């Protein structure tokens, strides 16, 4: 065995080994976001627009009506007995029930958007089949822009969530466990510098940061074509700053608690609102305007916005500066308070 080198290095190496020897921790950091990305990526994958099921009440004109409706790309007609059709409409199995005319009668629920679209499409199809001529010619140009799909929205959000989870858990668990087992106190009885210990916790966490980013972004790119359109350097810088910020929050959570249960409760209290509000799985714009200032001040919201700006929209540093300022402020505040109230025993 070579001679031990600097305490900071040895502490960092030991903490990293400890992490890597915890299979559960490795799973949550590396595999869980991938599993989520795959599951959600498939659930929301691109496919031709669904045809809306509509019913046609059985009768002599039913065959012609079905043929006419089938010509519309939006509708999936089938023939039903009247009672059966009403039942299907009521239970949402079809969006519209057509009684062939003349006059044609449309049964539908006006509050259902799919029903309203089906009604318009059905009338259009029936009128055309009956020989309607449109005075204005129309041409369609369809867009499916990359960077605007759900998976493009999701991958940066998962990355942000992972940066938060890993930062908070890795620091909070490791420090709380060490305090609980009186290891902090034992370390305090050596000439070790306290700052070395805390710094090593962070360095160790940052040491697998690059791997995490490569894993998740690389996977998104290969499996779903989610490209990083902006600067890689900027992306890395955002990740680094975010990781440090969440390390600070982890340290704050762990600054006094003596049990894992306590740390875990506090961590959930801190992170749960951000999972919901900060736009990981759906845009935070969906929440009422009144709470928007609060949501936008959350660190994970700022991280997610910055990541999306760089990954999806190729924005420069200047565009994400306000978000980075929010992240830096949270990080700094957490560190200062954590160090002030930190208990070694």
């Amino acid at each position, binding site marked *: *065995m070579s*001679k*031990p*080198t*600097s*305490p900071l*290095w*040895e*502490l960092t190496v*030991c903490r990293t*080994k*400890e992490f890597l*020897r*915890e299979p559960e921790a490795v799973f949550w950091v590396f595999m869980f976001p991938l599993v989520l990305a795959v599951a959600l990526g498939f659930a929301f994958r691109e496919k031709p627009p669904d045809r809306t099921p509509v019913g046609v009440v059985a009768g002599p004109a039913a065959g012609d009506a079905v043929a006419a409706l089938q010509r519309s790309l939006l509708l999936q007609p089938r023939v039903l007995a009247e009672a059966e059709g009403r039942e299907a409409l009521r239970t949402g199995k079809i969006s519209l029930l057509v009684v062939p005319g003349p006059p044609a009668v449309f049964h539908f629920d006006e509050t259902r958007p799919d029903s309203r679209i089906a009604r318009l499409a059905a009338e259009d199809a029936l009128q055309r089949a009956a020989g309607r001529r449109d005075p204005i010619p129309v041409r369609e140009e369809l867009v499916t822009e990359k960077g605007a799909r759900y998976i493009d929205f999701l991958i940066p959000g998962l990355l942000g969530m992972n940066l938060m989870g890993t930062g908070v858990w890795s620091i909070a668990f490791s420090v709380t466990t*060490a305090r609980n*087992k*009186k*290891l902090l*106190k*034992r*370390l*305090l*009885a*050596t*000439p*070790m510098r306290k700052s070395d210990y805390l710094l090593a916790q962070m360095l160790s966490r940052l040491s697998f940061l690059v791997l995490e980013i490569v894993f998740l972004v690389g996977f998104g790119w290969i499996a779903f074509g989610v490209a990083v359109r902006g600067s890689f350097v900027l992306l890395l810088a955002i990740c680094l700053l975010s990781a440090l910020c969440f390390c600070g929050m982890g340290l704050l959570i762990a600054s006094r608690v003596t049990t894992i249960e306590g740390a875990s409760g506090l961590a959930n209290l801190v992170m749960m609102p951000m999972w919901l509000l900060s736009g990981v799985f759906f845009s935070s714009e969906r929440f009422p305007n009144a709470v928007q200032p609060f949501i936008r001040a959350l660190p994970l919201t700022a991280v997610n916005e910055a990541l999306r700006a760089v990954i999806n929209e190729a924005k420069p540093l200047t565009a994400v500066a306000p978000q980075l300022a929010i992240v830096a402020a949270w990080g700094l505040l957490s560190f200062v308070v954590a160090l002030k109230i930190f208990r070694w*025993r």
Partner: protein
Amino acid sequence: MQTPSSSAAEIAVTCRGLVKRYADVVAVNGLDLAVRRGECFGLLGPNGAGKTTTIEILEGLTLPDAGEVEVLGTTWAQDGRRLRERLGISLQETQLTDKLTVAETLRLFASFYEKGRDPEEVIAKLALEEKRKARVGKLSGGQKQRLAVACALVGDPELLFLDEPTTGLDPQSRIQLWDLVMGFRAQGGTVLLTTHYMDEAERLCDRVAIVDHGQVIALGTPRELIDSLHAANVIELGCEPDLPEAVLRSVPGVAELRRYGPNWRLAVGALTESVPALLATVERSGSRLLSLSTHRATLEDLFVSLTGRALRED
């Protein structure tokens, strides 16, 4: 308590008038100590006597409410960090990281010291070679405790603090640990340990301070302390119906008499004098002898004599 006449250079640890109060108890209540360089000094007392609080104050981990502490000629306030380089400490209930190996743990602790020892050398010395690649979580209690002491020794300390080093260990592990401590002392190191095992104090310590309710109630070499009983032997007696105290006191050679559960304990001088007389007394009073045993007086008996309580009740 005797004050050592030796000069300050020969004193490793002193404290005067140490007081530490917690919310509702006074853990240490005006405690004085002087540990000489090169000796193995033991704090012996029951659980809750204030031993751990005292040793942690001396280790600079707990601040006393009152009193002065001097360690290796300096104070914690003056030179705390430099002082840590010269001490080896094993706390009562530290659990080292389960996921690291023995070698990794020692290497980590060695890195904290400017002139630490080679971890491999310490591993060999503590007979942990076979376990050097084993995770800490897989070690036995005795091996863990040896590793804890190894972590204290890896900084090549002048002074070793051990808080209850053998509590909960099997006899073989205790003896291994005692050998370690004796080896360290033989090379000129100073040891301050706490224990509630009287045999540990008797076997290992050059001098012992008996601590109760946060104060030193007796101090000396184990031999001196036991001799201070003026009774080299103890007889434990049970009979039915029980004999009154006055009758037993009249037995020749009885220095002290005490209840011990349903039995009596008599501190006596020579067994050859007291045992026949005691048996004659029992016979005369028409009582039936249930049990009779004797042992050489120990620190335990001294503690009982001083406090009226056993060392390991509570």
